[in-house]
């Protein structure tokens, strides 16, 4: 359990050098620590519908969950250089994951769920509790071959199947696949409104906040589209590959299977690249957020091309202090003071602000009745 005190800001790309120099002078850290994370945003698969009893208030919430791991880009991305569209020199791409290779079993994932930040009018900084646990090893007995061999099991597997690993040894497979794809698309259309909301929430959770709601909406719907096209691409891709793999026993990726069994579906993904300074107990992170670029295919088919979420090349800044116990009032007060001191000190460089609490809410809201 981490109690995190934080303030956020953003700077245009042009003030990057100045900011870095100032922070180097302030912290005495000449080479800041690089950060690069890859996050899967996941949402509970099932709908929580508690029994309604008069006089009883439901205290149980459903939460979005982040699954975070590290990533390294293929071409040594330099964050001090702006990333421009259609510029081959600054192209960022990443190796595909979940290709079924053995080493993927060794990838470590941190599962993280955050509470909504503490409410109140006189908050000096955002304070929220984060729960996390790190998965260092996964194993599953679900193999694609099991599906063909044991018909009783296949029904169970099918119900849970996240992707379309349906392996009927017939020629009809392709037809089955397309039918399923269509079904999925229909379901997706129904869910579209929800997904848009998800994507929006997700975006807001991870970074700080834009003040223009219109911009957010467009961004969110963009991400939704991306997600969809990505899914459909995956569907298409998987159809032929499953045919090839008919007689090969491929173990389903154990991490994805684990997430699915835990009850979570992946709804979105993003990559973060940046640097980090330390000032006393305070961590100062400066980073850019990247998302999958589906307009252009990467020249290498084993890689995914990325683009900036915010194409203006703006840097996001997050300063935070982690406190191990949320009950440690002394530490929290001291941490708050330190953050305020830093805010005052850096006020001419960038303005550190409290992120909007509502955008940091990671609870899954029940679908509104239309």
């Amino acid at each position, binding site marked *: *359990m*981490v109690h*995190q005190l934080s303030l956020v800001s953003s700077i245009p790309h042009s003030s990057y050098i100045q900011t870095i120099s100032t922070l180097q002078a302030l912290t005495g850290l000449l080479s800041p*620590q*690089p*950060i*690069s*994370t890859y996050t899967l945003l996941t949402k*509970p*698969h*099932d*709908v*929580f*519908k*508690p*029994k309604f009893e008069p006089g009883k208030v439901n205290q*149980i*919430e*459903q*939460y979005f*969950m982040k699954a*975070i*791991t*590290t990533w390294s880009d293929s071409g040594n991305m330099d964050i001090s250089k702006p990333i421009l569209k259609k510029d081959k020199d600054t192209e960022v791409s990443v190796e595909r994951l979940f290709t079924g290779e053995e080493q993927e079993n060794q990838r*470590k994932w*941190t*599962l993280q*769920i955050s509470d909504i930040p503490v409410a109140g009018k006189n908050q000096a900084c955002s304070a929220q509790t*984060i*729960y*996390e*646990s*790190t*998965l*260092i*090893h*996964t*194993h*599953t*007995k*679900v*193999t694609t071959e099991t599906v063909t061999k044991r018909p009783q099991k296949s029904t169970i597997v099918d119900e849970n199947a996240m992707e379309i690993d349906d392996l009927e040894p017939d020629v009809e497979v392709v037809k089955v696949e397309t039918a399923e794809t269509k079904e999925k698309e229909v379901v997706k259309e129904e869910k579209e409104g929800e997904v848009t909301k998800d994507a929006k929430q997700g975006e807001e959770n991870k970074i700080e906040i834009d003040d223009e709601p219109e911009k957010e909406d467009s961004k969110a719907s963009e991400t939704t589209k991306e997600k969809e096209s990505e899914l459909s691409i995956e569907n298409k891709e998987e159809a032929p590959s499953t045919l090839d793999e008919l007689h090969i*026993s491929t*173990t389903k990726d*154990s991490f994805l*299977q*684990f997430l699915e*069994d*835990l*009850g979570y579906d992946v709804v979105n993904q993003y990559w*973060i690249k940046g640097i*980090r300074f330390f000032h006393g107990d305070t961590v100062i*992170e400066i980073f850019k957020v990247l998302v999958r670029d589906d307009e252009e295919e990467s020249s290498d088919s084993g890689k995914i091309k990325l683009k900036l979420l915010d194409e203006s090349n703006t840097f996001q800044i997050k300063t935070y202090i*982690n406190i*191990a116990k949320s009950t440690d009032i002394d530490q929290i007060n001291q941490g708050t003071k330190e953050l305020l001191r830093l805010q005052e000190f850096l006020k001419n460089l960038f303005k550190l602000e409290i992120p909007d609490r509502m955008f940091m809410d990671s609870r899954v809201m029940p679908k509104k009745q239309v």
Partner: protein
Amino acid sequence: MVSAVLLIQKASPETITQFHDQLSNELPTLRGKWSFNFKIFRNNPYSIPPELVETATVHPESKFLFTLSPSYLNDSTITLINKKSAGVFTNLVKEAAEELGHPTDLSIPDEHLHKGATTGLNDPFDFFVAQKLQSLWTQRQLIRGDGGHIYELENGNLTIRTSNVFLHGNFKGLLVEIDVDKNLLKGDTVESFTATFEGIRNKYGIPAGELCCDVLDVKNLDTYGDLIYQYSTILNF
């Protein structure tokens, strides 16, 4: 390592002391004491698959999530969901584990912390589930193992762990966990595992009981996944 778990439900103080005496005669290396917590979670019945939301009020099927935290695996929790997928969670970063003098074979690599994927302040997985996944999983049972001993035999190729099992404070039997090195096995099927472990049971005079040496996937053995699978089969009161 391949494991098997044996539960002697009819164990009495006499049989337990007799068994410990007999093991001591084999001059084992004593590896200290251990204990464990085994938790059983059931899916929250009010979490309903989206396609059934309009028609059903409870989830049509029961699923189970097990967590096992043995004290000999420092700060780690093994988990098994639906008897299909297993995972090992740990809450110490390698550099912190080294500082504390804990074994580092199950720890988060330093890079994971340095690159920003974790805050370094991890919770045990059973706590995480109980706190934040209440809408999906609710805890049903807590089985505790106390007063356990670890014996190492045959030059470290065989480890026998014994522990008393308690459910709600009631004694439920003596649990014996047997770990053997892969090269002591006589084959690679479940039947041959049974034969091997029955042999060990006879050789060291382990009292008869419910023996489980089933594995999740015979072609692809997984030390921790198979271990918790056996616990979940045996500790089924």
